[in-house]
Each structure stands twice: as C-alpha cells, then as structure tokens.
C-alpha cells in the first residue's frame, strides 16, 4: 500500500463508519485507531502517536473555551424550565396583539430573546408551538405563515449570542469566543429584522394571513398589562444585558459571563418561586449529558485528526479543495457554503463543527491569509458567523429539519405537515439571502471585533 492512498481511504472510512449510525464520538475514535494501526503496520506512522492520545484528552479538559458550554446551557435550561418562554410569549403576544401580524412579531422577538439566553431550538419551538400556535390558528392566521414563523424563530438560538454553536465554532477555528459573539451580534439582529420584514410584507400583501387579535383575546390591558410587562420582561432583559454587555465590553470572559448568567438565572427562578428541586435536577442532568457528549465527540475527533494529519490528510483535503474549487476567494467561499448547506441535510451542527470544519480549515485559512494579510483570524470570524447563519438552515429544511419535526410533534393534527414544510421555505430563502449578504459584506462581522 502506498502512503498517498492512506488519506483518501481514511476519509472514505470516516464516511462509512459515520453512516452506520453508531455514536459519532466512538466511530471517530475507531476510524482513527484503525488507520493508526494500518499506518503503523506499513511504517507510515510511528507508534509514538499513541502517547499523544492522553495529552489530547487533557487539552480538551483544560480548554477554557469549552467550559462556557455547560454554563450557558445551564443558564438556558434554568430559564426555560422556570417558565420564562411561556410568560414572555403570553405577555409579548398581548403587547403586540392589537397589531396586524402582532403574534408573529411577538414570536420572532421572543425567539431572539430566548436565543440571547442560550435557548435550545427544541425548547423554543415546542414552547411557541404549544402556546402561540393555537392562538394564531384560532384567530385565523395562515397555517403556513404561523408555522414558518415559529420554526424559524426557534432557530435564532443558533446564531444570537451566547449561542453554543458560536462557542464550538470559535474553538474549532482557534479564535476567541468573545470576538465571535461581537461579530455575530449585528448579523443576528439583521436576520431577526429580516424575519420581521417578512411578516410586514405578508401583512401588506395578504392581511388576512396575519390578523390582529380581537378585543376578547387581549386579557391584559392598561395598568395590568404594564405591570405584567414590567414583571415578566424586565428581569430576563436585565440578565441578558448584564451577561452579554460585560462580555461585549470585555469586562468578563465568556466563561465568566456564562457562570454569572447561570447564577443569575437561578436567582431569577428562585424569586419567581419556580426553582423546584425537580427543575434543578433536570437542568443539571441535561447539562451534564450535553457536556459529556460534546466533549466525547471532541475526544474522538482529536484521535481521528491525530492520525489523519499523520498521513498528511490535512494537506490532501487542502489540495483537493484548492484544485477542485475556484481560485477566486469569494467564489471559493461560496462553494464551501453550498457544500455545508447540503451536508447540513444529514449532519447536525455539532457534527459539522467537529468533523467538517477541521477538514476545511487549512484551505479556508489559506484564503483568509490572502484576504487579510494583517491578521487572517479576522477572516475566520467572518467565516464562522457566515457558516453559523448557513447552519441554521439545517433545522429548517424540509423534510428533515428538526425545528419542523419539533413543531409537527406539538402542533394540532389539523395543521397539515405540508403547510409546515411550505411555511419554512420563505425562511430558508431568507437564510440563504443573509448568508450571501455576509459573503459580500464581511464588515458586518469584522467591524465589531476588538
């Protein structure tokens, strides 16, 4: 066997092992060790590589960046399980109810707010599907518009800081999480704005699709509404501004911000008398489980890359991409985005971040060194945010998108599945537009970096 075929073979092995459907973390480790063993047999790799395995695991463990993952997850879970989403949807819905398209605006804004507390897509979509969807359908919203708005707004958690995707992305690209957050803020606000504009357009073209709430549906009015807004909306907003604010101005590291956010969430939940032992235990258990599976995928991918780099796989992929893809940097990034868009039909974002990004990183770094000779990392922030917006679509595309699945699971049977699919299409188009906007306007990301 010649050395040159090792990398392509290993790549094929990776695809086959992953497709079998055994957990990713161990499939990655197994491909790595199998090819490490073959490599040692043919003297392509020195047995010393084995000694690096514990070192790589220890690096994963000491990684301050990843530490932010359990903290932000914990914060989001505590806020969700203590009923924040439900209260916000109810109150903001009442606040905007008078407007045509009011509930749709409320859903989008609450989606963005939940995103800013590290909401999880599943929880946001399910809460909206159970609380806002019945109201929208009862008062005559078009089922397509209603379901599309809910599924898409739930995915905002993926891109609005302090999103977990951005943490993982920053880790894999080797850049700072704080700057990744700074870079993602404006694009995520623009994206939220585009969702709102979509509802405005619908309300102008087809007002019947997004009616306002009739008088009897607005149970809070006047002073009661004001009081409700103050008690329900202000505390989480203050928490969000404290956490994100201190990270943005650089007073706190993302890890510290996450820890303080989680502590703050515990205090808020306790004040609202919603912090039962059950809520706490569930949130801790889910956090530990997520932390464990994410860290183990990372361990598996480190073992894989140890061997893959050993057989020059990184250079093979880099050359492959450079020969197969156009030389023009923008065209190159466009093709990469199309590839990721397609891969996102099959892999979820953790898998893409841990498997695909390391493979394409050398080639992308090369492109960014050309575009940003002063500091190629600036380009990596741009690339990371662009990919983040792109990856949101993995939740939305019919028929596999998980946001659609979550909505289907909680929507009344009278809502047709085809309506859920068609409702998502305009938002997939918005995502594509936003990805293109970012591709041609890197300053939307890079302007805010420190």
């Amino acid at each position, binding site marked *: 066997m010649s050395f040159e075929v090792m990398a392509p073979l290993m790549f094929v092995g990776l695809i086959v092992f992953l497709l079998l459907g055994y957990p*990713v973390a*161990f499939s990655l480790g197994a491909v790595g060790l199998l090819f490490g063993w073959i490599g040692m047999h043919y003297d392509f790799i020195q047995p010393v590589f084995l000694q690096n395995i514990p070192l790589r695991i220890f690096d994963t463990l000491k990684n301050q960046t990843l530490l932010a993952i*359990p903290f932000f997850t914990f914060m989001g879970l505590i806020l969700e399980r203590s009923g924040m989403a439900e209260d916000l949807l109810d109150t903001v819905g009442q606040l905007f109810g008078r407007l045509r398209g009011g509930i749709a605006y409320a859903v989008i804004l609450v989606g963005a707010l939940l995103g800013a507390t590290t909401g999880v897509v*599943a929880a946001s979509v399910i809460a909206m599907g159970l609380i806002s969807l019945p109201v929208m359908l009862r008062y005559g919203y078009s089922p397509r518009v209603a379901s599309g708005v809910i599924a898409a707004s739930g995915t905002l958690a993926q891109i609005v800081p302090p999103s977990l995707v951005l943490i993982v992305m920053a880790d894999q690209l080797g850049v700072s999480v704080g700057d990744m957050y700074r870079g993602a803020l404006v694009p995520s606000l623009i994206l939220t704005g585009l969702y709102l504009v979509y509802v405005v357009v619908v309300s102008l073209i087809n007002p019947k699709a997004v009616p306002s709430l009739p008088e009897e549906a607005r149970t809070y009015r006047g002073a009661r509404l004001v009081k409700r807004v103050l008690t329900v909306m202000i505390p989480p907003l203050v928490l969000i501004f404290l956490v994100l604010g201190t990270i943005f101005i650089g007073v706190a590291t993302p*890890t510290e911000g996450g*820890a303080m956010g989680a*502590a703050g969430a515990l205090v808020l939940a306790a004040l609202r008398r919603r912090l039962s032992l059950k809520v706490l235990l569930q949130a801790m258990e889910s956090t530990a*489980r997520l*932390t464990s599976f994410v860290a*183990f995928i990372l361990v598996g991918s480190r073992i894989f890359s140890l061997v893959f780099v050993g057989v020059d796989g990184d250079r093979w992929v880099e050359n492959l991409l450079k020969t197969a893809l156009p030389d023009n940097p923008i065209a190159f990034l466009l093709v990469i985005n199309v590839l990721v868009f397609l891969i996102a039909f099959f892999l979820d974002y953790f898998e893409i971040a841990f498997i695909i990004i390391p493979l394409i990183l050398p080639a992308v770094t090369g492109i960014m060194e050309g575009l940003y000779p002063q500091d190629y990392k600036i380009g990596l922030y741009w690339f990371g945010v662009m990919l983040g917006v792109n990856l949101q679509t993995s939740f939305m595309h019919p028929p596999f998108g998980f946001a659609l699945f979550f909505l289907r699971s909680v929507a009344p049977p009278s809502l047709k599945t085809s309506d859920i699919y068609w409702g998502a299409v305009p938002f997939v188009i918005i995502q594509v537009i936003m990805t293109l906007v970012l591709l041609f306007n890197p300053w939307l990301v890079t302007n805010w970096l420190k």
Partner: protein
Amino acid sequence: MRFLLGISRAIDALSLNINKAVIWLVLLSTLVSAGNALVRYALHSSSNAWLELQWIMFGAIFLLGASYTLMKNGHVRVDVLYSKYPPRVKLWVDLLGTLFFLIPTAVVIFLTSLPWVANSISTREMSPDAGGLPYWPIKLLIPVALVLLILQAISEVIKRLAMLTGHLDIPEYVTEEEAEVQEVKAIVVQNDPKEDKQ
C-alpha cells in the same frame, strides 16, 4: 443469561448513582466560577487554585458522565440510515459498534493513559502555575472514567444480546429528538401561564 443480566443491572445502577453525584458538579462549578469572577472584579485578585478548580470540575462532569450518557443513548449519531433500520438491525449495529468501535477505542485510551498517569502520580505532579492545584488526581480520573465506560459498554452488549435472543423485550426506539419533545412538552404545559389562571 440471567446471571449476565444481573451483572448488567449492577453496572447500570453504578452508572446511575455516579451520575447522580456528578450532576451536582454542574451547580458547584457554576457557583465557583461566578464567585471567582465576582472576586476578581471586587478585589482585583484571583487565585489559580480556584480557577483550576473550574476546569477540573468540567473534566469530572464529562468524564464521569460519559457512562450514564451511554446508558441513556445520549451520544449523538448520524441517524440518516440508523433511524430507518428495522429494530433488530439497530440492535446489531449497537452490538457490533460497541464491541468493535467503543470498547477498542476506550481500551486504547485507557492503556495509553496508564504510563502517563503513573508518571504524574509518582512525581506528585502539581500545576505549573503559582498556587495551582495538584494535577495527578484529575489525570487519574481519565483511566477511571474509561473503566466505567468500558463497564457500561459491557452492560450494553449484554442487554443487546438478551434482546436479540429474546431474553429481554426490545424497547421501542425513541430518537433523541422524540425524547426531547416529550420532556419539554411536559414542562411547557406545566408552566403555561394560561393554565395558572384557570
């Protein structure tokens, strides 16, 4: 088979109980880390020992939580094909995957970590930073966690074998997403403000 299933139940109970303790580290590490940050602003001082405690707890959470996560089918899969397999094929994939992917990987990590950990213990390795904590206990946790993971893998193999031979009912396959929907749905219904008023 009854004897093997007994072993499997004992291992499951071990993983469950370890996890019950480990999840409290989530709360503890949050409080330690938030405390560190506050002390840093208020007193402009920070201690390496407390900072290191944060990531040591993070490591303990993910290492010791892995066996429970395996038991709960919580390690993510690429399920494009898997979700369409008939139940018995799923069992075979899990069985062979555990035997040929998980266990070998875990054994290799375990074996390669031993000399490295032994070295750390014999030198009573300390953090290179001033006022830092000893490193050897957390390093020791790596082989310990892998032993627990291998044990849990054995339990999973026993359960799959028992299901394939009809000694154990095949549970209905619930995807991670379906489980998530069930869990969150219950919480949302309970928290729905409209329910309060009625």
